């Protein structure tokens, strides 16, 4: 028999078929759980609502009073992000000091106090984990109910959630840096606070600034999302326009959001280049 007539053998066929079979078996219940009905996207009701809504996306709503409202909301979003980040840093910095005391005395030599220090450190660590594990939208949802609708809820949500993240990153930066200057200072008798500010802080500062600026950029994005639950800014306006099925307003605000994110990107890049 000529060689060319031999059936070509696909070496990868069996594993691929097995993989697809397993994937389908796993996927089936998931599709049931997600109520996966693509047909519902094109049924008459949905076509009517979505078609009408998408049809109004163009032209954009560029009337002067609406643009003024968009500008005010965008500014509000920026302000929420800035104020929230400021509070987050103000909460995170002392917490990071509390958590990273391991840098100092107990490493130099065992002291009677170091069990007690652990008792402080561990709860502070848990607090940071707790703050950052609950997503910012959930915090916003809670604060909207605690302090009422409006930007205050957004500011607090960013402050609390980002304090958890910044605190963790700050103390990781301290511990990743060179600890010898701080040790030298403390071994020659300086206090812990002075040892930190003259031994650890100068080395850690550029990285801390760079990460904080990056977080501010994330806060701009997050504050748009949090607006959807009533925490003020561009998101709240977008939710209102969407509820009224006003496509022109929604598309204008999507564009504004896009520009805002670009702006935040550029500012953050510039700041990091200058100061970090």
């Amino acid at each position, binding site marked *: 028999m000529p060689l060319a007539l031999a059936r070509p053998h696909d070496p990868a066929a069996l594993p691929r078929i097995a993989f697809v079979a397993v994937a389908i078996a796993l996927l089936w219940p998931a599709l049931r759980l*997600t109520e996966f009905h693509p047909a519902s996207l094109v049924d008459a009701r949905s076509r009517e*609502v979505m078609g009408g809504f998408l049809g109004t996306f163009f032209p954009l709503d560029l009337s002067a009073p609406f643009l003024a409202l968009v500008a005010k909301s965008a500014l509000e979003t920026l302000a929420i992000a800035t*104020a929230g980040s*400021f509070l987050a840093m103000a909460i995170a910095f002392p917490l990071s000091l509390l958590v990273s005391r391991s840098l100092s005395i107990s490493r130099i030599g065992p002291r009677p106090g170091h069990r007690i220090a652990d008792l402080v450190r561990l709860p502070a660590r848990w607090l940071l984990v707790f703050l950052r594990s609950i*997503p910012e939208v*959930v915090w916003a949802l809670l604060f909207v109910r605690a302090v009422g609708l409006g930007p205050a809820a957004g500011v607090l949500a960013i402050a609390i959630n980002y304090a958890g993240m910044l605190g963790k990153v700050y103390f990781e930066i301290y511990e990743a840096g060179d600890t010898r200057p701080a040790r030298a200072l403390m071994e020659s008798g300086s206090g812990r606070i002075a040892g930190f500010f003259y031994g650890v802080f100068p080395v850690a500062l550029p990285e801390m600034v760079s990460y904080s600026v990056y977080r501010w950029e994330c806060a701009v994005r997050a504050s748009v999302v949090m607006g959807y639950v009533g925490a*003020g800014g561009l998101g709240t306006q977008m939710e209102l326009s969407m509820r009224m099925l006003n496509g022109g307003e929604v598309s204008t605000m*999507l564009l504004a959001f896009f520009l805002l994110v670009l702006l935040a990107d550029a500012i953050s890049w510039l*700041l990091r280049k200058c100061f970090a």
Partner: protein
Amino acid sequence: MIAWLPLVVFVLLAGASFWFLGVDLAGLFGADARGAMLEYASKFFPPDLSGAFLARVLGGALETLAISAVGTLLAAAAGLALAVPASGRLGTVVRALARLVLNFLRSIPEVVWAALMVLAAGLGPFAGTLALALHTSGVLGRLFAETLENTPPEPTLALRNAGSPTLAAFFYGTLPAVIPQLVSYALYRWENNIRIATVLGVVGAGGLGQLLYLSLSLFKEPQAATLILAMLILVAVVDGLSAWLRRWLGRSGS
């Protein structure tokens, strides 16, 4: 001295922000507001751990997992379909167009997609799945395209030169080389998407988030506390699992 300048500017900007927003810091942390917040927080205790409610929470958690899994899978498929043109295999014009689509998908946040999809598909997990799929396909498409661009073209060219059709050359020349990277990107995104799927529900897109939104709206704070706990546990379990999986893959892969 100059090093303190950015800090001073930042504090001033933050002060201006508080003023612009009309948020009174002293009022927020004053005795009245603190008391009100503590009172609100105390309503969350103890969490509702009754069997019937726990069963609902479990259902919500499974729904969240399913939303994230199906959404990521759809996104991986759509992302790969978009990544092939976006990697420049079909010409520069197509490449630019595909990149534009990817950028558009990626720059609209999941929650906004979810709000749109709730209008299109109605309240429920399907809207959340679609929203995740749309945003994630933009993210994965871009990552996949970069991977494809960085793959050496020689195996594919060899197959093409030996006369194999384009599609077969792609499946046997390119795909085997990039699959591990694509899978690791998709898994990383899945992990991310589980977090996002838990919150998408606040705009009505199913899962734990929707239950949380309902319980808070009905002033059932103990139930909300259970749901928040469930979110924390879900994310922690997934984190642990993925760390373990990564270690295991790393060991068997090398």
